[in-house]
């Protein structure tokens, strides 16, 4: 019978947070919430009270702020609710307590933990149930109970090693399809038939592990079937004319532009887990952005947590040291009324809070600064939040080995394997509905950042010593994807018996398939194994020798003497039938809209719009200072509350050069609703102008694409996807910037409703001298304000359109020849002529200028060129290619010459702490003076009013 220990802190802010969150879920009567940690100790041998007492004093209890009790549960104060992780879900506190007990030589303990909430106040059963369901527990990974919860230990089943044979011979198409959906394979009939034929040919039925391996390897997640498919697009323009085009692989189209551009500083693109570009002659930079949407919808903390872990492993997978993180998040409105919430979906507020906590937990614990991002709120993301996680890495030029050799050992390092994370790849390759939670609970995991941190330390040292010939991460699909991929050319022979498990009882196919986070697979020459083992021992990382690269061209897996898999690598990697898909796209009709009146309320409304308003409450939960290299931070200005355009990062250990990296992003899903082609070009432009605004060189920019779309087997979804890819390829050519890596997350649909087509463009660039990097706050009173670029009358997809419900469908025209202006701005910044710069995006130039005033706490007086727009559109349009620059008056002439036709002087920084916006005509004549006049303090209040919501 396990012994129960309860530890209660005198003042736990978590209790206060629950009290203040209760009204938001409709519960009024909660007056107080006391939070206690419960530890169930199960000892193999005798466990005396003295031992437990010692354990409490040594590790469990902080004597200054907490007290503890051993034995029965404390008498309930009010209503008690206990919450515990489901058996098998990562429980790091339990693991550390077991280790501590070992170190104290107390006993061989098994520990399971729970949290106890004593809810005090005027609460009925319903209120307690609502608090439990909406604030305390998530059924996907936790169990909860009113009163005392029995301890939850994983049942330790003795491994009765079973390999099941799955007969396919003679099954009809519909039977094959049924089998695919029953086993969560996410394979279509054509693909199931190909598998059936292969096994008919070799004269036996596939094993469960073979079928699962094929499903993982052939999943949309792993092989990007849609991006490799042949697609026929029927495009109907607004005037009704149709054109039909054939697209021979979307991925191929993106790669083709990169090959065409092939700049000298490009090290590798689309070949590994991350793209690589030169930093200087000694170091390279690796960059990757991933998505973790489906898991974050079900378990926001764990989903986002492991999203960070996954993209960091992508960086490790190119032998780079991770040095920074980014994230871009799309949620439903956090003030969504409960009655509009869909069944089976968590409330957007809860998803947002959980996702942010999950990202903060993982990034902070890895010691990576989270430096750049964006948050978009839109009703289109209620059923499917989007979580983009990015990571940047540094590696010694040319140090990443890519070729496993015959005889190399297949070695896994990092975490142990459990049942968590099975079917992650196939799960993310299907749409969701209200029952998804029940069927795929096992696909959702909680991360273990400290184990991954150990892997980072080991890989850096192992790479430095040349101890491996190839490396990849264990992502979705676990060993099946990682080993399958790595052994494609040589073939591998694996024995699963030695794999370290979190608990016994896993079947071979589960060991082989489980994603179980925080693992890397390496090809290690036998004579390097001992050295690698020593490094692993030094850094508390476990190593498993799984087998060898065999030269047979086959994937052979055993569990001891039991055969598990025996298939040809050729079929695994080349047997997937290519998809032939049809796509349709209809250009939206043009709509005339009436512009609202321009006044102070307009500006305050734009600043308070959730997409524009301060993200400080989120940003401060991320450590953006660790590694001592953050030059331009996410928040800038005297009070550190102005939004930055991009992050400038000086990698630790590169003090030999003044160069630094720049990371930025662009996305405009509201434009995508009307015109996904324009969205791609406008998102690309946003990423680039953000990057240029802080001093980045437009001739050293590498791009990543991340497509989040609905079900691509529906022709309209696929049509808009094709249009967006066309926008990307045209954009890469126009901007002369190669895509170096990308990712698509399709099937983001909930019960038939797709997310808005959402393309994130991430940009990586360089500043030659970090002392020339600037932000949007550095201006002084008396500085001139300049505008680069011209406005657009089209308000479709703008924040102003959303705020006023205008219904505009025309979107701004992308730029034809963007580079001259960006080069001009860059020369001006590099020459030290610009004191501050800010791009015009969400909320248009009105919001941009107000944000600069907020960041600097100075007044501004500006007359914006009308450029053919009415006053409202002139101030709020989100046309591409526009930046506001501040510069000393004494540099007026030289800056004018540097910017040439691209720059116009529009006003100045004032000492009067007012934001004054007017409109000027083509010859600089005032059309409307001081249309908007807002005190900087009021602007700050509007900008930060929703910070804590």
């Amino acid at each position, binding site marked *: 019978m396990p012994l129960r220990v309860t530890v209660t802190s005198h003042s736990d802010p978590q209790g206060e947070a629950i009290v203040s969150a209760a009204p938001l879920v409709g519960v009024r009567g909660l007056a107080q919430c006391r939070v206690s940690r419960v530890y169930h100790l199960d000892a193999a041998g005798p466990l005396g009270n003295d031992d437990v007492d010692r354990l409490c004093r040594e590790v469990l209890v902080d004597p200054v702020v907490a007290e503890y009790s051993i034995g029965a549960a404390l008498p309930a104060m009010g209503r008690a609710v206990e919450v515990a992780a489901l058996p098998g879900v990562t429980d790091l506190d339990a693991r550390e307590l077991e280790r501590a007990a070992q170190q104290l030589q107390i006993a061989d303990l098994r520990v399971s933990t729970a949290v106890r909430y004593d809810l005090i106040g005027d609460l009925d059963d319903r209120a307690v149930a609502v608090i439990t369901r909406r604030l305390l527990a998530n059924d996907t990974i936790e169990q909860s109970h009113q009163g005392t919860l029995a301890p939850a230990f994983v049942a330790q089943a003795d491994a009765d090693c079973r390999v099941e044979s799955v007969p396919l011979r003679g099954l009809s198409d519909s039977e094959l399809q049924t089998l695919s959906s029953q086993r969560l394979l996410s394979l279509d009939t054509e693909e199931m038939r190909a598998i059936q034929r292969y096994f008919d040919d070799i004269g036996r039925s596939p094993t469960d592990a073979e079928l699962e391996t094929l499903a993982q390897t052939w999943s949309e997640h792993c092989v990007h079937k849609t991006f490799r498919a042949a697609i026929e697009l029927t495009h109907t323009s607004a005037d009704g004319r149709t054109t039909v085009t054939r697209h021979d692989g979307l991925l191929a189209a993106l790669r083709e532009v990169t090959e065409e551009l092939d700049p000298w500083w490009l090290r590798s693109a689309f070949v590994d887990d991350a793209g690589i570009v030169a930093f200087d002659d000694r170091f390279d930079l690796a960059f990757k952005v991933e998505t973790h949407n489906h898991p974050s919808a079900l378990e926001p903390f764990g989903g986002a947590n492991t999203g960070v872990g996954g993209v960091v492993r992508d960086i490790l997978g190119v032998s780079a040291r991770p040095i920074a993180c980014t994230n871009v998040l799309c949620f439903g409105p956090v003030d969504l009324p409960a009655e509009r919430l869909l069944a089976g979906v968590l409330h957007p507020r809860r998803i947002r809070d959980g996702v942010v906590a999950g990202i903060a937990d993982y990034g902070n*614990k890895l*010691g990576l600064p989270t430096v750049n991002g964006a948050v978009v709120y839109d009703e289109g993301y209620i059923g499917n939040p989007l979580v983009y996680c990015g990571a940047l890495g540094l590696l010694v030029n040319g140090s990443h080995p890519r070729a496993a050799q015959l005889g190399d050992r297949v070695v896994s390092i990092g975490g142990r394997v459990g049942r968590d994370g099975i079917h992650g790849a196939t799960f993310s390759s299907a749409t969701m509905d209200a029952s998804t939670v029940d069927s795929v609970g096992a696909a959702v995991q909680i991360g273990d950042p*400290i184990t991954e941190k150990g892997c980072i330390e080991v890989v850096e040292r192992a790479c430095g010593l040349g101890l491996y010939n190839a490396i990849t991460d264990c992502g979705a699909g676990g060993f099946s994807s990682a080993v399958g991929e790595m052994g494609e050319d040589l073939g591998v022979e694996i024995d699963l018996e030695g794999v370290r498990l979190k608990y016994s009882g896993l079947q071979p196919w589960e060991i082989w398939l489980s994603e179980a986070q925080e693992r890397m697979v390496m090809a290690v020459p036998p004579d390097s194994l001992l050295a690698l083992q020593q490094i692993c021992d030094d850094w508390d990382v476990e190593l498993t020798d799984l087998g060898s690269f065999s030269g047979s061209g086959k994937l052979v897996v055993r569990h001891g003497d039991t055969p598990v898999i025996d298939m040809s690598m050729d079929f695994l990697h080349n047997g997937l039938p290519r998809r032939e898909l049809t796509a349709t796209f209809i250009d939206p009709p043009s709509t005339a809209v009436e512009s609202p009146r321009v006044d102070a309320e307009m500006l305050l409304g734009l600043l308070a719009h959730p997409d524009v308003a301060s993200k400080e409450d989120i940003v401060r*939960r991320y450590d953006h200072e660790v590694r001592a290299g953050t030059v331009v931070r996410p928040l800038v200005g*005297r009070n550190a509350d102005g939004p930055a355009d991009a992050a400038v990062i*000086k990698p630790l250990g590169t003090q030999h050069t003044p160069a630094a990296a720049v990371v930025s992003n662009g996305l405009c899903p509201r434009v995508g609703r009307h015109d996904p082609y324009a969205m791609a070009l406008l998102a690309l432009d946003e990423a680039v102008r953000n990057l240029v605004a802080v001093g980045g060189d437009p001739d050293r920019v590498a791009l990543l694409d991340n497509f989040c779309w609905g079900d691509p087997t529906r022709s309209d979804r696929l049509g808009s996807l094709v249009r967006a890819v066309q926008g990307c390829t045209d954009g890469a050519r126009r901007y002369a910037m190669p895509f170096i890596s990308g990712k698509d997350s399709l099937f983001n649909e909930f019960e038939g409703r797709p997310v808005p087509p959402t393309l994130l463009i991430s940009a990586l660039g360089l500043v030659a001298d970090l002392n020339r990097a600037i932000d949007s706050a550095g201006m002084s009173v008396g500085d001139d304000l300049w505008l680069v670029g011209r406005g657009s009358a089209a308000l479709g997809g703008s924040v102003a359109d959303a705020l006023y419900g205008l219904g505009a469908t025309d979107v701004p025209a992308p730029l034809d020849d963007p580079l001259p202006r960006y080069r001009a701005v860059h020369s001006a910044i590099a020459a030290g002529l610009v004191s501050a710069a800010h791009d015009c995006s969400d909320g248009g130039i009105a919001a941009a200028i107000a944000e600069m005033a907020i960041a600097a706490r100075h007044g501004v007086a500006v007359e914006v060129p009308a450029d053919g727009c009415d006053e409202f559109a002139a101030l709020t349009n989100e046309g591409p290619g526009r930046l506001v620059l501040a510069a000393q008056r004494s540099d007026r002439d030289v800056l004018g010459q540097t910017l040439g036709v691209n720059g116009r002087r529009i006003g100045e920084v004032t000492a009067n702490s007012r934001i004054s916006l007017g409109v000027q005509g083509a010859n600089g004549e005032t059309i409307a003076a001081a249309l908007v006049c807002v005190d900087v303090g009021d602007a700050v209040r509007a900008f930060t009013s929703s910070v804590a919501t």
Partner: protein
Amino acid sequence: MSAAPILIVHASGTNRDGDAAQAIELAGGSPRIVHVNQLRRGEVTFADHAGVLIPGGFSYGDSLGAGQRLALELRLWFAQELSEVVTAGKPVLGICNGFQVLVKAGLLGAVSEHRLAPENRQVTLTDNARGRFECRWVTLRVEPAVRSTWLGPIRDTIIRCPVAHGEGRFVSADDSVSAELEAQGLVAFRYQDSGATPVFQPDSVRAAAGAYPANPNGSAADIAGICDHSGAVVGLMPHPEDHVLDWQRPNGDPGATGLPLFKAFVAAAR
């Protein structure tokens, strides 16, 4: 004279060891990052070094409370070595997680001279008053009356640097402990309000007086760091190692870096 060898202790989850090593190097010391496992095996010893720095991070993921697990390991495995380091007057510095570790090990904040017993703990670092991890720049003053000898050269100095923690609220067991800390000169750093002028100016710095965000975590008496009776052991929550170069500062005039702290540390380690 060769650079003083400084031991930077790394446990699994430590992550500002590189930042600390850079600061030590800029201050003229010779940093060496060593994993606890290597120390435990005796491959490297505390005695080989002229000073010990326990850097920031999340040792063992901060499971069971920030610093608790590494504190236990220090007590179990290195009590003797650490006590010799302190007796020899070598400087010991804990930053952020390192501070939490020193407090929870009983090396800092114990009122009695008997070291390294959990019962002796009279102060702690617990959840921030706002209940969450927070990263922001703060202003510190080295306490003019601090007892620590090696902090002597920088008494009353202003340092600007970031905090990045979730469990940094300094709490004493009771008022008598607080009074004792003040009376004995054990308070080493306090959070300051650097004023609302457009550009940071040292002259406008005044006490944070408990007000957020100048005091970012609700620490009692604005205490950001303390020292022990011997004056050799010092700990603080903020990260002076992240402001040792001018470009690391987000805004404001040159100066107020954390470098003088590391120079004082290295000087004492000679």
